[in-house]
Structures are given as structure tokens and as C-alpha cells.
């Protein structure tokens, strides 16, 4: 933030949160990223659930 005094002597601020170029870069980086493929996760999850169910079955026996 950059501070300064206005005509009435009150402190005012100019908000320069992130330099324009970097701020835009952050938004672009997020917005232009690819949606991750769910396929690999889905396969891992199915395998984990099979493992859990197999363990439950063994416990019952």
C-alpha cells in the first residue's frame, strides 16, 4: 500500500495490492490450468475400496 495525505490532512491510501502484471499472471495461471483427469484417481479409489471390502470379508470369516 502507498500512503499519503489528502487535502483535509486525512491519510489516504492507494491500493497497489500486487503489481498489475503479476496479479494478472496469477489469475491467468489458475484460469488456464487444465482440469485434472479423474481416470487415474478413479482407478486407485476402486482398488482401495476392493481392498477394504476384502479385508471386511476376511474379518467376518
Amino acid at each position: 500500500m502507498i500512503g499519503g495525505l489528502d487535502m483535509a490532512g486525512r491519510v489516504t491510501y492507494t491500493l497497489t495490492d500486487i503489481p498489475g502484471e503479476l496479479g494478472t499472471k496469477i489469475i491467468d495461471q489458475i484460469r488456464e490450468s487444465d482440469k485434472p483427469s479423474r481416470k487415474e484417481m478413479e482407478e486407485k479409489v476402486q482398488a482401495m475400496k476392493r481392498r477394504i471390502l476384502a479385508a471386511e470379508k476376511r474379518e467376518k470369516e
Partner: protein
Amino acid sequence: MKKSSVVNHNEVFYCEHLVLTRKTMQDIDDFRVTNSEGKGLLEYLQNNAYHDEKLGAQRIYLVRDMITDELVAFFGLKTGMVSQNERAVKIDNEERIVFDMISGIELAELAVNDIYIRHNPASKGCGLIIFNDFILPICEQAKQLVGCEILYGFSVDEKGKLLDRYLNEYNFARLDPESEAKVQDRLRPYFDKGCVFIYQKI
């Protein structure tokens, strides 16, 4: 499994909203997260979760074992936005503050009950099941109703295993170091020291 409270289920778990019953209160008291980074999550569940749920500030979900009803995990979701590039511009000779923003859902909490895993070692790593089968479908549903570009969060444990898991198994991404430092300064929740902003498109 009490069908009336269930939001979703798969072959091994079911997911319900946080409703305070005697059993739920006992289960929450007994919930354990043994790693040090999880202390904040446990504290949140035991002291703040119900308040946020009641207020509508977050939706808190409990994940339970399909057969035994044991409390497996909890997670919290809330809407949010990532805002950047706040700047003063002149519009019609008037100075106004504007900023760029991306709408999203924040995965505010996700924690697995270590007591449940101790009793059910085959369920180790079940956070991934919960993420894939419960969290992502909720996000997809929300996206059908309101604007929602990303799922994001703040991963504690910058140097440890948890961040790696979010990046490599849960398919989150992190920004480049310069951008990350700026986002952290602006968006980081006050209690999340050393956390890292992570995100993925939904």
C-alpha cells in the same frame, strides 16, 4: 446407516451433514488426528464446526463406515473467491477500486480419524476415496447451479507428506513461488501458518 441424514454413499462409507446428536458429539470427542499439522483441524471440529454449520458459513460433512457407523473422517466446504490485482482505476472520472477474481469452492477442512484407521488398517489412505466419491461430486453439483471455476485450499505442512499427497494424488496444483508468496499474503487464513495455496479446475 440412517438414510434420512445421508447425502451420499459408496460401497464402504456414507456421508452426512453435521447434526448434533449424542452419538455425534461422542464421536467428535473421540476423533483423533495424531500428526501435529492436524491439531488445528481437530480443534475446529470439536469447537467450531457446528457453529459454522448452523450459521451456514460452511457445510460440514461427516463420513461414516457403512457397516459400523464409526466416524471415519470429516470435511468442510464453503464458497469463496480468489481475488488478485486490486487496483485503483478511473471510471467516469471517478476513482474506483477494482480487482480480478475467480469463483471457487474452498476445501476448508479434511481430516481422517486416526482411531478409525488404527481399527481398520485396510482403510489407510481413504482420504482419496472421500475426495473422489464425496467431495468432487459435491463440487460438480454446485457447479451446475452457480459459477465455480476451481476447488482450492490451503495445505498445511509445506515440508512434509501432506502437501505432496495433495499435489500428486489429489491432483491439486500450486502456483510458481513468486505468485504463491503474493497469494499467501492476501488469502491465507489467520490460523494457517506456513500453509500453501493449492487449486484445481472443477
